[in-house]
């Protein structure tokens, strides 16, 4: 059930109506049934997978809570780790490693006959396994006491607003909320509703519109050059941002309407001044998860700087691989890891160069420097996104080379047969509106204070957004990009 489908809107309306008319002590049942129904709509069989890993994690958490002995706790932690990572490996990575091994063996004419595992990866698998693992690790570390209520724990593992594509919540933040009483709050409901509308705008007006242009070029990279490729690369950066952050806004908004608070997942990443800052603003829940549960324990063991750099590189290769079981994602992660290490190594020299070229005591030079930093980080992201979006490794050099071939600014060189100048104008205006709203949000909490505005302003804004979605939205039900991860 896609968020942008009529089925989902009907489902959500029913859940919201029933939720606030159900006594507090039974609400977890309603949300749990709704969440499992939501997941079953993708594929019924995967509900059993979700239930299975949930039971393992619940049991492991309880057993860890019964003993202070580290070795015994570790046994149950490993049970949870193997169950979750085992399922993730089987459904997401088995075929990738299997195919890679087959290619390697074939290159040396060695017989290799391990069959392919023909199964579709369950939606949200990468997200809910990480969320569940985070719980197990927190219980092991003593940061969280085990959840004794199986129903509440099952709800934490399957909460429908964030089940398919995050944010990857922490047990210390989300689990306690399921135990609290949530009275209907009309202001929170309206604020959440606005965020949902904004998410739909980002997804349907910006992301799905840009996808038409991006897909045309990336699916046939040899047929395009110059401005077509340049625009496709720029558009993909905004497409993936609007697609994923749009989904996140819808998830956070729905949870808010129900009275729950999910973590922010994006904080204007394209305004970052360094690559490190970018990763603190992009898909925040994943990066924080990786930092807390993978980078931190590994980095503590590093005694030399080069070991720390190796950990950084390795961690970002894992982040790349998390996104997809394909070599271009590995390359994407490796590139980002390299960029971070390079930035760290060159920081002292770059700081000296900045002091010479952009003396900070001159306001205009300071602002110019900051603008240049943002432009460089965006360029690095765009290059990384070529690795990310390309359909195969062999497409990457084609796209990069064709970007600089026969660059022209004529209409034919910019527009596409299925993406006219009018479509380009709509896309451009929508992106400007996106930047304007984000700029405003940084200065005052637009989404958090919407319900406190005068009634006429609330009507005007929500109706304007609805109008924009209905007039300019793409209604051909494209799945969210991050659902494939």
């Amino acid at each position: 059930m896609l968020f942008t489908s009529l089925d989902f809107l009907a489902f959500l309306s029913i859940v919201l109506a029933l939720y606030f008319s159900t006594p507090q002590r039974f609400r977890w049942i309603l949300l749990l049934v709704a969440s499992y129904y939501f997941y079953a709509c993708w594929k019924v069989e995967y509900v059993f997978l979700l239930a299975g890993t949930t039971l393992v994690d619940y049991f492991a958490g309880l057993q860890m809570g019964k003993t202070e002995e580290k070795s015994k706790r570790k046994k149950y932690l490993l049970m949870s780790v193997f169950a979750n990572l085992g399922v993730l490996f089987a459904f997401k990575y088995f075929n990738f490693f299997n195919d890679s091994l087959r290619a390697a063996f074939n290159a040396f004419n060695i017989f290799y006959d391990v069959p392919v595992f023909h199964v579709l990866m369950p939606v949200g698998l990468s997200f809910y396994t990480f969320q569940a693992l985070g719980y197990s690790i927190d219980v092991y570390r003593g940061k969280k006491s085990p959840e004794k209520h199986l129903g509440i724990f099952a709800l934490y593992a399957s909460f429908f607003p964030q089940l398919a594509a995050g944010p990857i919540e922490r047990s210390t933040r989300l689990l306690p909320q399921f135990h609290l009483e949530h009275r209907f709050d009309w202001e929170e409901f309206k604020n959440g509703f606005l965020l949902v509308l904004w998410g739909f705008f980002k997804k349907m007006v910006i992301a799905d519109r840009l996808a038409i242009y991006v897909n045309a070029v990336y699916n046939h990279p040899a047929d395009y050059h110059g401005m077509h490729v340049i625009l496709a690369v720029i558009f993909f950066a905004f497409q993936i941002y609007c697609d994923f952050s749009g989904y996140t806004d819808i998830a956070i908004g729905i949870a808010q309407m129900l009275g729950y608070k999910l973590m922010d997942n994006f904080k204007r990443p394209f305004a970052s001044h360094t690559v490190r800052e970018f990763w603190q603003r992009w898909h925040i829940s994943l990066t924080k998860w990786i930092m807390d549960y993978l980078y931190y324990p590994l980095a503590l063991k590093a005694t030399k700087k080069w070991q720390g750099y190796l950990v950084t590189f390795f961690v970002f290769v894992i982040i790349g691989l998390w996104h997809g079981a394909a070599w271009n994602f590995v390359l994407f992660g490796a590139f980002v890891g390299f960029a971070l290490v390079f930035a760290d190594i060159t920081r002292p020299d770059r700081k000296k160069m900045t002091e010479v070229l952009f003396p900070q005591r001159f306001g205009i030079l300071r602002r110019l420097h900051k603008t240049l930093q943002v432009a460089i980080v965006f360029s690095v992201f765009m290059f990384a996104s070529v690795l990310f979006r390309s359909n195969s490794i062999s497409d990457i050099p084609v796209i990069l080379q064709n970007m600089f071939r026969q660059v022209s600014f004529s209409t034919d060189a910019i527009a596409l047969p299925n993406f006219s100048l009018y479509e380009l104008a709509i896309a451009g205006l929508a992106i400007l509106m996106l930047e304007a709203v984000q700029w405003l949000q940084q200065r005052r909490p637009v989404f958090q204070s919407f319900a406190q505005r005068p009634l006429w302003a609330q009507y005007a804004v929500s109706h304007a957004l609805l109008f924009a979605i209905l007039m300019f939205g793409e209604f051909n039900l494209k799945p969210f990009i991050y659902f494939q991860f």
Partner: protein
Amino acid sequence: MTSIDQKSPAAKDIENWLAAYVAKAMKIDLSEIDTRKTFEHYGMGSLEAVSLISELEDWLGRPLDATLMWDYPAIESLAQYLTTAARVN
């Protein structure tokens, strides 16, 4: 340095600890540490942040999120958060 006389003693202690740690780790004179400037301003990268969090956990005697310094990127804001979080807990 900012005036920290009006803050709670706990926040002041944490600020002093953090300032001393940053000064030692980045080989800067303690008097040059401005608690409002970010850790990154003093050249602290991810690896240095990990070490700081690890030692801070030991000093405070409680587990901390490794990514605390993202949300509280300066000595002053981190100290205030840790004091508030301790009171809530």
